[in-house]
């Protein structure tokens, strides 16, 4: 399955993830349950899982991406607002 490991930074903390796995899955595996604050300040997480709803927007190396369709790469720096 995913044998290659990747070290990524999540909000400054190092996380061992699986190279090529969708970033949202790696974050959920690691126990992160919320990716974004809504306009009114509600916690939001992965919803559609297929790149449609934009609820799992996070920053990767400074660019905004949809975590559900962004594969993990070694050295990635991920940022989002934790609840």
């Amino acid at each position, binding site marked *: 399955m995913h044998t290659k490991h990747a070290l990524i930074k999540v909000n400054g903390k190092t996380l061992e993830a699986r190279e090529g796995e969708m970033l949202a899955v790696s974050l959920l595996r690691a126990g992160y*349950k919320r990716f974004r604050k809504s306009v009114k300040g509600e916690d939001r997480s992965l*919803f559609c899982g297929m790149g449609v*709803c934009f609820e799992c927007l996070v920053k990767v190396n400074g660019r905004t991406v949809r975590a559900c369709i962004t594969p993990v790469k070694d050295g990635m720096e991920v940022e989002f607002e934790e609840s």
Partner: protein
Amino acid sequence: MRRAKVEKVKTEILIAGGGIAGLAAASVLIENGKDFILVDEYPFLGGQFLRHNPLYRPMDTPTRKKGFELMERLANEKRIWKNTLIVGYYEETDEVALVRDGKPVIIKPEKILIATGAREKFLPFPGWTLPEVISAGAVQALIKTSGFLPAEDAIFAGTGPFLLAVAYEFAKAGGKVIEIAELNPLSKLMGFSSALIDLEKAREGFKYLLKLFGKTTFGWRIERVEKSGEKLKVVFEKKGRRKIRETSLLAIGYGFVPNIEFAQLCGCPVIYDASLGGWVLKTDDELRCSENIYAAGEVTGIGGARKALIEGELAALILSGKRDDSLKKKRAHEMAFAKKLNSTYSVPENLWLSIPDETIICRCEDVTMKEIKEAAENDFVSLKGIKVATRAGLGNCQGRTCFPIITEFLRAKNISPEPVSIRPPIKPIDVGVFVDLE
């Protein structure tokens, strides 16, 4: 800072979408020696139906088997571009602008095959934006692609056989299915069983039944969902009666709507047909939308993977100058099945009107049902008008989630809105793509 260099490419046929329809078409075009480029937004091929981990591939139906054969055959095909987002179509020059691996590219095709698939549809309720409420499709993707079980137990609610398929995967992966709450009453679904005189689909249905026997309830709708400690409290309602269930995860799905945005930009005619899933592309029986534009798969009507496979092959044969009457016949059979499916598993019209005021409809801009209703009462009765009045659909997803909901709400009020007009970029893109900072 200057404008980034843009690569320009010519091709005979541009296939938009690398799901089962697009891949089937690519394979037939290769066999017929045709020139093409297939583009797909995702970093993987196969769309949603074939979105499996290589080690997690149930080859249990002929359609899935065929799909994975296509994936293998086309895995190293240079004319298939993954990670390529379509930005727009420009009529003046007949050019399609794309972003491939973060870089702008322009393709000038002679013909286009639209195979952009579908997305899920939802009937919202207060609490559907909670992080523990996710789409049935997302649950399936998490399990099939990553082998990740998002919770130990779950309720599946909504309508349609897809819910059963996902609940089945969830149970097989070790999750506890608390309940599958089918919105429609059993009496409405009985007529559909006659459509199952089809071995492939009957076998699949039987498989689910064995694993999930006794878990399915009928006719209950979700009234609201609240957090209750670590769990979710789901309040169901049926004819004035209420019941409460606790669960770690609530997976919802109310059917699908075609992704027609690119086709709209290309000027393809769309029609509203509830029995085909809502706004669909209008084609002739050779899948032609207009002189040089063809469509295949869910965009012509929500009908599942086998229909998509047949239409992908048929469209590619027509594009290769051939005809195949037996495929046309098979397609007609699939369309009849699709109509039965969508008419049976539809959300009852009155439920669109009884969405509580506090419910968030536009998840991007947190616009509530109350705001939508007020706008509609003040004569903002088009999607564009509601968008301007409330900001619904102005966010990142560009109305992909809320416009189908608002459309159904307006239709339930006997208003027939036009689909919103689409402008590029079809999906938000990072502006950095178009400038060269070096």
